[in-house]
């Protein structure tokens, strides 16, 4: 598995590539943090790793990480995100009050903050959107996800969802958005 080709595959939206990376480093990363922070449970570690993977994915799709600026290996990059996420997790958890953590070298990897620190009020609103999306169903749900989360262009969406062309996809997107808003306002 070559790092650069994996990056490109993930960038084009290849979910399989993302899963391959996940499975490849899963045990090594979980072993590392479970050993170094021995009060973490398997469940905690799974949460941290899946979150790190999503952060890696977002950095690739938003262009922050590309084949030109990957200065280390993809593994080092992912593990650095993972360690940062672990520290953030440990910091919030009183089980770890007995250890002291010092950061001796600042990580140069940036990623978007998690939803965990959301206001309860805001999170409830997002949950409402989540429920509306489920009600909306596919293909609308998938289309909106592809456009607003995976940052796909209309032409790519047309291809993925079998629309005739980008205009049809765009038209469809507007309709889906209208329906979603209607559902949102009903609640």
């Amino acid at each position, binding site marked *: 598995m070559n790092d650069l080709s994996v990056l490109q595959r993930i960038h084009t939206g290849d979910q399989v590539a993302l899963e391959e990376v996940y499975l490849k480093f899963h045990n090594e990363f979980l072993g590392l943090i479970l050993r170094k922070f021995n009060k973490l449970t398997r469940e905690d570690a799974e949460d941290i790793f899946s979150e790190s993977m999503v952060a890696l994915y977002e950095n690739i799709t938003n262009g922050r990480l590309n084949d030109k600026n990957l200065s280390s290996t993809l593994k080092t990059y992912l593990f650095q995100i993972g360690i940062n996420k672990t520290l953030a997790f440990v910091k919030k958890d009183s089980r770890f009050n007995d250890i002291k953590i010092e950061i001796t070298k600042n*990580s140069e990897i940036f990623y978007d903050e998690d939803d965990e620190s959301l206001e309860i009020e805001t999170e409830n609103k997002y949950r409402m959107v989540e429920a509306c*999306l489920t009600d909306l169903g596919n293909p609308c749900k998938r289309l909106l996800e592809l456009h607003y989360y995976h940052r796909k262009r209309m032409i790519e969406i047309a291809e993925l969802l079998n629309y005739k062309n980008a205009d049809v996809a765009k038209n469809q997107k507007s309709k889906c958005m209208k329906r979603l808003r209607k559902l949102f306002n009903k609640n």
Partner: protein
Amino acid sequence: MENEENYIEFIENYLANKLTKNEAQEFEELCQNNEGFKSLYLDIKTILPGIQYSTKKEIKSSLKKMGLEQFSNDDIELYKQKADQIDLQKSFGVKISPKEAKQVHFIPPKNQKTTSWFSYKTMAIAASIALLIAAYLVFSTPKSESLYDLAYNEIGQGPYTYINSDDENLTVVRGAEAEKLESIKQQAYNAYSLGQYKNAIDFFNEVLEKDEDRKVKFYLGNALLANNQPELAIPVFNEILAKSPGEYEPRTKWYLGISFLKNGELEKAELILKDLAVNGKDSYKGKAEKILQEF
């Protein structure tokens, strides 16, 4: 609503910061003069991050499920042993040690007698140096500034987000005077959510002259804080707390604490945040606990 499709794209571009100066101005005018547009904007502002939130959650949980299904604890055990060869500090710049190490141990000089010739004069000089250092700490309070930054920008993620909560839609407006007040209120919230804190402050104050509205007051405090006027935000937050704050209590205490930090009043900040950590109920309790660890 007419033009809804075009407007959605316009709003998306606004939220992504992609509008030119002229377009942004047009956007703000629409927001102020067109009710339909404004409510579309407020919906989209929640729906877009909501879609992202929901998609992200789905991917996370499907990855997690895959990990749990494919690997047993024994698979991981092997790597736990390998982890002993990894130095976290060397590889990731992170040093972990037991907390006890944090305490500063004062080691008394071994030979007390040899130091007993210390004259009172030397002691006096040492004492005044200590005083100077203490004074420096009190007046410059760099700690307070860094705690403020941590609390406001990292834990709290910047100014309080304006949410058009449902209670406003239920407001029944009677009479021209009340209608006018309601419109100023809306202008205030608009300005606030667009980050125009100076304008928002003026509007909020105008409303408060006629109507003691707790929510308006809370946003006034936040606008003042965001506008770098913590000294003015403090009395506003205190006023809310003095008059049955209700559901506003935890968040008001949190932003009062932050205002104290911003204003360099570390002790007062600690007091109110401790209160919040002990008596708070919602997410602000956790936030207070988090920041107190850094004190």
